[in-house]
């Protein structure tokens, strides 16, 4: 059988399989819009908080204004007591509570170190850290003012105060995702996972569908060529289709959301090629082993969430149990997610991702050999997976 007929057969099999068309051509495009959808507003801002001002002094109202002026928080309500504030928080879905204690203004002037209570609803981790950050910033501004006042009253010359109150300041500069945006955080990783998962599904569905002679074609094109050719042909066809999709994902799709694309094109290629080969081979292996297209789809679908959380971009790898960390290393998506983020969002030197690239090539090779063996073993024979369960 000629290469031409093999490739034509592959293309026809892919394009005439509605499930594959749905996943590869419609799904991948749809996902590029759906996944960023919840995060389009990037960072939670102007979260509503309730103030319990037990003082009422000039200074306490000044603090309230400082808090309202931060970008993170806005003062949405006032309450007379902590209990009322808690009730309001629950009833109106507010994000936090600020309690200004009695005699706040007087204590501040007298240097008695009043204590502000700042509370954020930690059910929502991101919101609560935003709220606490905003209220804390306002409290720091207030503290700086108070400190200057105290020193002045103590007779320290104004020239000795100014900025120089804190002996050593800390200047925190977020890098790579300077705006601390959620899209830039989640989407680069999720896009890699989408490419990986849909490719594994598609190659698996195609492979599983060609086991036995369920299509009534006793002599399908896939039976008339040696397994190594079928393997290469399948990798080539899916590789070309996914090259197009990868170009879309790593190009206009990332650009559309304003996500950094710092990698050089050659460096991206050097990752895309082994990723696509490995994922296609994993798909063929799964297709052969699971023997039914819907089982492939199910397994890939169920694996997605554990893979996201085991991939180390949400929860540090060092905090995940070692056994789990090692177990997921067999999935191409794991090194791929890490490598693409390092290259594209963090501008790592290509040398830094060499081990990850090596891992991807190793996976491509290992799964390729396994796929070759499985394709050869099952060819022409009814597969064990087709036996009815007893």
């Amino acid at each position, binding site marked *: 059988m000629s290469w031409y007929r093999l490739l034509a057969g592959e293309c026809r099999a892919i394009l005439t399989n509605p499930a594959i068309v749905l996943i590869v051509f419609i799904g991948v495009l749809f996902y590029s819009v759906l996944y960023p959808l919840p995060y389009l507003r990037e960072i939670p801002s102007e979260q509503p908080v309730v103030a319990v001002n037990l003082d009422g002094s000039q200074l306490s109202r000044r603090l309230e204004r400082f808090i309202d002026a931060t970008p993170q928080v806005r003062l949405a309500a006032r309450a007379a007591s902590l209990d009322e504030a808690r009730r309001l928080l629950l009833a109106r879905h507010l994000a936090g509570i600020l309690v200004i204690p009695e005699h706040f203004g007087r204590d501040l002037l007298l240097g008695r170190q009043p204590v502000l209570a700042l509370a954020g609803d930690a059910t929502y981790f991101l919101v609560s850290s935003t709220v606490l950050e905003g209220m804390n910033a306002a409290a720091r501004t207030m503290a700086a003012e108070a400190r200057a006042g105290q020193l002045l009253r103590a007779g320290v010359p104004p020239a000795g105060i100014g900025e120089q109150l804190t002996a050593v300041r800390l200047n925190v500069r977020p890098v790579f995702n300077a705006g601390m945006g959620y899209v830039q955080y989640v989407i680069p990783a999720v896009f890699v996972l989408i490419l990986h998962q849909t490719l594994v599904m598609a190659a698996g569905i195609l492979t599983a569908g060609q086991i036995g002679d369920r299509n009534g074609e006793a002599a399908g094109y896939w039976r008339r060529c040696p397994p190594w050719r079928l393997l290469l042909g399948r990798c080539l066809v899916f590789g070309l289709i996914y090259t197009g999709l990868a170009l879309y994902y790593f190009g206009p799709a990332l650009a559309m959301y304003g996500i950094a694309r710092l990698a050089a094109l050659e460096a991206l290629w050097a990752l895309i090629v082994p990723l696509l080969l490995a994922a296609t081979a994993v798909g063929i292996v799964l297709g052969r082993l699971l023997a039914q297209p819907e089982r492939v789809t*199910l397994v890939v679908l169920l694996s997605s969430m554990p893979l996201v959380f085991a991939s180390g971009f949400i929860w540090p790898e060092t905090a995940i149990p070692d056994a789990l960390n090692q177990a997921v290393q067999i999935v191409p998506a794991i090194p791929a997610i890490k490598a693409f983020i390092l290259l594209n969002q963090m501008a790592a030197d290509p040398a830094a991702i060499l081990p990850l690239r090596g891992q991807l090539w190793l996976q491509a090779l290992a799964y390729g050999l396994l796929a070759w063996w499985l394709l050869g073993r099952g060819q022409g024979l009814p597969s064990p997976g087709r036996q009815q369960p007893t």
Partner: protein
Amino acid sequence: MAPVLSQLGREWRLQAADRWLLALFGWLPPLMFALIWAIFGAGLARDLAVGIVDLDGSTLSRHLVRHYDASPTLAVTHRFGAVAAGAQALRSGSIHALVVVPAALEEDSRHRRSPQVTVFVNSQYLLIGRLVTSALQQAHATAAGGVDAVQVLSLGSPSVDPAAVVTPLAGQLNPLFNSGMNYARFLVVAIIPALWQILIVAATVMALAAELRKGELPIWLAPAPLLALAARIVPGTACFWGHGLLYLGGVHGILSWPMHGSWLVLAAAQLLTVVACQVAGILLMLLALDATRALSLVAAYTAPGLAFMGITFPASDMTPLARGWRSLLPISHYIEIQVGQANYGLAPAAMLPQFGCLLLFFILVVPIAFRVRMLRSRGAAVESRS
């Protein structure tokens, strides 16, 4: 009663004969829940790698670095001679933050020129970056506060209380409803329900697919198709409700995470959620008429569920379109009930809107009935032709 029971018994035997369905109904969901818990089991991140470029090498700079290293969240793992080497390590992901102590830090501080230590934090991994930032800020405040107090004393004004000058007012941070800002608690109780939703919808499709594969008469050609569909999903309802309760019992019972609300309300919400997911699953299967295609629809529908639930990113900050999609997912309504009960301990009556939303999913029975009628007439046409 007896015919109903025997029908259910038949359904159960039919579905239990399929090893895959048996796994979905039995051991697989608890195993996956345990896996998620295992990933986040540590609860708090410890010893996150930090690199130091100490261009000063003074007593003061060593004092600061010791304080950073002493934070349980941080560990100073790398020291670099130059900023360039440190930046490279930060870019290659081997450290989460790079602390740069400028030259002449100690001298500038002694002359009250208020020098600053600059920290570059990798915020690409947003939540890890936030943990590192707040740990560094805390450690720095402790370390620098001591230095400030000495300086205030050296101003030589007897009427100044150094403590009051260093911290004129204190902020006491109280995370509500999740003491200690436990990361596991925050994420696990959102991830497991999202996973649960995927499992339920997918299992419903698999349960309906069992007979299509065997080439038997499809269920919509049964004498009473809607009843037959109902009987088909009941075993799944029981199993997945059981899994849901197992999860609740696991986190609030065995792990004893606080539970402020009513178990009864939560159990009822879970039952409604299971059925709502199953109804959605039936509709997807009837639309696709093929298990693989239906499952790829299930993937599109449920896989991004966690992002839309509003726990990781607030629903109030989503665009209207995102909120629209969110409301189409049963789990978004369930999670509001879960948070309202387990975290806030709200009165059951406050949960009525969410219960109403879950009940609305029963409207899907109408398109299901339409679709069944369509398929029946199509099936009849095929039969009459053959």
